[in-house]
């Protein structure tokens, strides 16, 4: 399926835009003081406002607005000095007021941009950067939850989630493949967690994606779009888009027409199917909510919020490339989440010198603040550490090896105390049993032999015991060099400093 799409790609252009609902990480609801904690008993967090008792009035949560401002600043967007809440009218039992309070023509966050790093799915295509435009982001309240099938002919309603603050982030239709859409969603997911406005828990519905998909002939007019609703995993997003794109292409190539529709993805079958047929029923009759006054955001408030923003992923990535000489790709992996970036920086800098930024840029030896090679550290994090985390099903912040432990070990690799092979053993021990690198190296006798006298003695012994091979080597059989390295390493129990050993061997074999 996927390959068919790619082969046909020149004939059809894919156009994708996303609407993402992020649940803001406030303690209380957007318009009332009820708790937003996930997983409580049904309706125990549904106060008078959440269940829409007559006569109650909404009062806007400052924390929700602050988070919206944070997001806007993070994507370089215009923050509206004045924005307006509107009623979106529709009937559904999980929306007891009969309308959702949202924003319509005057949203709090205007146009911004998000730079994404796309990893193409097809074999040898290279990762590339793309700038996706964000149209707007607006504040609104979440609805409750319907529970079907508990009682015959009845639906149960739990209004705990009703009134949870959402920031709906709308992109321009700038993405032209499933890979780009997924990269955008992942970057956005990482960003909202990075700036601390959303916990990003997709299983609990804190980050839900609606994907608008259409196809067209290159250069032709935009095709009719279908909206895939409520995707809560990146894998499903990928599958849903692949299926939907193929379905639309097949439909058009067979002379059919695409009708605007809302579709759902069936994860078991891997297919999409239309959810509502009566599109004209979606007449939301938006109007400004008379219960809420315009929201004013002063320049001063905006600047206060700006001061609380951490260094953003993109800036960090560029700094890693510039200051540490990392590849853009490696820097991208290290800044994919704040936890990884924090781990990386903490491992680079032993606890006594926490000023990463200052040190890194003023250090004459850019690649090694705190004596740890940044590239070496990056390789270990991207390689061994992430492999172990994957194996044990852990997140970065759950790593049993602390950044300080890793940093301590990397220092011993950098200063030649241990070889890479020995480091792997030190790391495995740290992971399983804890302890710092120096004591593990000591206890296990992993210290590399860098005493040239000792290495020379080993080499002399080998040369004496293998006179025939030495003769062969000297008569031009260069390949035998590896054989001697192997013997010497074995004789030193793997502890000989490899670079030193090479030098000494070369010199002695030359005669």
């Amino acid at each position, binding site marked *: 399926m996927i390959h068919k799409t790619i082969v046909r790609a020149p004939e059809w252009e894919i156009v994708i835009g996303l609407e993402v609902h992020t649940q803001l990480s406030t303690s*209380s609801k957007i318009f009332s*003081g009820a708790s937003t904690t996930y997983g409580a008993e049904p309706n125990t967090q*549904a*106060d*008078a406002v959440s269940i829409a008792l007559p006569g109650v009035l909404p009062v806007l*949560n400052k924390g*929700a607005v602050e988070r919206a401002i944070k997001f806007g600043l993070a994507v370089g967007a215009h923050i509206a000095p004045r924005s307006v809440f509107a009623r979106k009218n529709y009937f559904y039992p999980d929306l007891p007021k009969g309308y959702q309070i949202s924003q319509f023509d005057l949203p709090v966050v205007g146009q911004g941009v998000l730079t994404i790093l796309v990893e193409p799915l097809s074999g040898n295509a290279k990762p590339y950067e793309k700038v996706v435009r964000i149209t707007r982001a607006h504040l609104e309240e979440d609805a409750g939850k319907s529970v079907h099938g*508990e009682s015959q002919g*009845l639906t149960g*309603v739990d209004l705990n989630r009703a009134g949870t603050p959402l920031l709906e982030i709308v992109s321009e239709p700038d993405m032209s493949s499933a890979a780009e859409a997924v990269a955008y969603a992942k970057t956005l997911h990482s960003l909202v967690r990075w700036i601390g406005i959303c916990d990003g828990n997709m299983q609990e519905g804190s980050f839900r994606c609606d994907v608008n998909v259409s196809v067209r002939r290159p250069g032709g007019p935009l095709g009719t779009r279908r909206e895939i609703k409520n995707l809560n995993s990146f894998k499903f997003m990928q599958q849903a888009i692949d299926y939907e794109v193929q379905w639309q292409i097949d439909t058009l190539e067979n002379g059919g027409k695409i009708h605007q529709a809302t579709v759902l993805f069936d994860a078991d079958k891997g297919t999409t199917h239309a959810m509502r047929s009566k599109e004209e029923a979606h007449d939301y009759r938006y109007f400004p909510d008379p219960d809420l006054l315009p929201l004013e955001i002063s320049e001063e408030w905006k600047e206060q919020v700006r001061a609380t923003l951490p260094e953003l992923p993109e800036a960090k990535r560029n700094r890693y490339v510039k200051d540490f000489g990392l590849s853009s790709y490696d820097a991208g992996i290290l800044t994919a989440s704040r936890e990884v970036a924090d781990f990386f920086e903490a491992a680079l800098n032993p606890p006594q010198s926490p000023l990463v930024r200052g040190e890194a840029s003023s250090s004459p030896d850019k690649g090694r603040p705190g004596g740890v090679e940044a590239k070496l550290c990056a390789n270990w994090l991207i390689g061994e550490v992430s492999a172990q985390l994957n194996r044990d099903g852990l997140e970065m912040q759950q790593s049993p090896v602390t950044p300080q432990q890793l940093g301590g070990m990397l220092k011993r690799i950098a200063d030649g105390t241990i070889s890479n092979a020995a480091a792997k053993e030190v790391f495995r021990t740290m992971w399983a049993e804890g302890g710092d690198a120096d004591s593990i190296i000591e206890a296990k006798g992993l210290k590399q032999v860098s005493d040239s006298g000792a290495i020379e003695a080993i080499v002399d012994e080998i040369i004496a015991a293998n006179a025939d091979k030495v003769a062969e080597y000297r008569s031009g059989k260069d390949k035998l060099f590896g054989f001697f390295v192997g013997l010497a390493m074995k004789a030193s129990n793997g502890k000989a400093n490899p670079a030193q050993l090479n030098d000494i061997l070369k010199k002695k074999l030359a005669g």
Partner: protein
Amino acid sequence: MSLTNADVRKVASLARLGMTETEIESAREQLSGIFDLIAEMQAVDTNGITPMSHAQDVTQRLREDVVTEGDQRELFQSLAPQYKGSPQVEAGLYLVPQVIE
């Protein structure tokens, strides 16, 4: 601007209002009156005037993000049976006629 009975039926259906033919007729007359008033207002020159979203020129007061409301489920759900048209309750859930898209 004059409304037709079909317009009124559409609006009533969007608002989930059941109306008899007589009611539709009288609603059409009343609504048309409102539209006439709007037409009259639209004749006013509003060039250079920033639209207001609220009748009062004041801005939204904000709440600190603090949980102030505790669990009142029992109270709310014990009230329900006393009022006509309010939903039944089971296992903490409000019950409504089955809705499945």
